C-alpha cells in the first residue's frame, strides 16, 4: 500500500508526443498506397453476392466494369426503381454495350486486347433477365472473358 502512496503527489512526466507524427505518417503512407480513387460515381446499388471460387483481377488497366442494380435514392426520380445498367458514368441499355467496349478497347494497346476482362458488378437481388441480356450483348460484341464480381467466403463443406 505504501508503495502506491509514495507516488501520489509526484509530478508525472508528460508523455512525449514527438513520435506521433511518425506514426501518423506511417498510417498516411499505408492509406495512400492502398487507396484507389473512385473515378466514376456509382449510380446503382451493387451489393454483390458471396462466392468461394474467386479469381483476382490482376491487371487493372485491362478491366472494364458493367454495373447492374437498382438506382440509388439520389437517382430514383430520374431512373425509376427497376434494375438498370450503368456503363461508365451513365445509365445505359444493353444495346449500348458494344460501343462502350469499343471505346474501352482504344485505351488498350492492340497486343493486349485479347486479355480484356469485363467485370460484372451485379446486385444479388437483381433477376437474371437483365443479366442475360447483358451476357448476350457481350457475346455478340465478342467480349467473352467476364468476371462476376463477388465477395469472398469459405467453401461449403
Amino acid at each position, binding site marked *: 500500500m505504501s508503495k502506491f502512496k509514495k507516488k501520489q503527489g509526484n509530478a508525472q512526466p508528460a508523455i512525449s508526443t514527438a513520435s506521433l507524427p511518425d506514426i*501518423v505518417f506511417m*498510417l498516411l503512407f499505408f492509406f495512400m498506397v492502398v487507396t484507389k480513387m473512385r473515378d466514376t460515381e456509382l449510380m446503382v446499388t451493387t451489393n454483390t453476392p458471396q462466392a468461394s471460387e474467386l479469381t483476382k483481377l490482376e491487371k487493372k488497366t485491362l478491366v472494364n466494369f458493367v454495373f447492374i442494380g437498382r438506382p440509388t435514392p439520389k437517382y430514383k426520380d430520374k431512373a425509376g426503381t427497376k*434494375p438498370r445498367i450503368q456503363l461508365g458514368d451513365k445509365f445505359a441499355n444493353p444495346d449500348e454495350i458494344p460501343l462502350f467496349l469499343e471505346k474501352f478497347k482504344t485505351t488498350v494497346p492492340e497486343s493486349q486486347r485479347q486479355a480484356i476482362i469485363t467485370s460484372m458488378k451485379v446486385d444479388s437481388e437483381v*433477376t437474371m433477365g437483365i443479366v442475360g441480356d447483358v451476357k448476350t450483348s457481350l457475346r455478340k460484341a465478342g467480349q467473352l*472473358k467476364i468476371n462476376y464480381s463477388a465477395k469472398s467466403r469459405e467453401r461449403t463443406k
Partner: protein
Amino acid sequence: MAKKNRMVNEINAGSMADIAFLLLIFFLVTTTIAEDKGVLVKLPPWSDEPPPEMKLNTRNVYSVLVNASNQLLVRGEPMDIKTLKDNTKIFISNPQKLENMSEDPAKAIISIKNDRGTQYGTYLEVYNELKAAYNELWEEAAMVKFGKPLDELNKTQRSEITDAIPLVISEAEPTKFGEEK
C-alpha cells in the same frame, strides 16, 4: 544582429502531426480497398445459327435447372443447394461406376438453365458450387497423382489434371416463366 537570431530559430514541428492527420483523414475517407475478385467465366461465342444438335448420352449430362423461385431441379429431381457440390462431384467422378452417371470425367457435361426471374445471387451460387466441385476434384487428383497441392504444380502437370477432368459448363437460353423484378 539578425544573423545571430537565425541561428537560434528552429522550425516548429508541432503542427506537423496536425497536417499529417488532415491528410490521413482525407485518404481514410476516399479509400475503398479494392475488392476486385470474382468468379471468372468464359462465355461461348455468339452465332446466329442454332447450335448443332448433338447426340449426347444422357448419362453424361448433369442438368441443373433453377426456376424463378430459386429452386433447383437436378436431373429431374429437386435438390438443396447445399448438397449440389457433393452430388456433382459424385456424378463426375462416379466412384462406384453406376450406370446412370458419367462414363468418364472427361465426358461429363454440366448444363445450367435458369429463368429470367431467377435471382442473380442464386444463379451465381449455383455456378460457384459447380466450379467448387471441379476445383475440389482437381485438388484431389493433384494429391493422388503428384502428391502436391494443385497450386504448387507446374503448368504441364496442371494441364494434365485439367485435361483429364475438363470443366464443361454449358448454359442454355433462359426460360421466360418468372416475373422480372
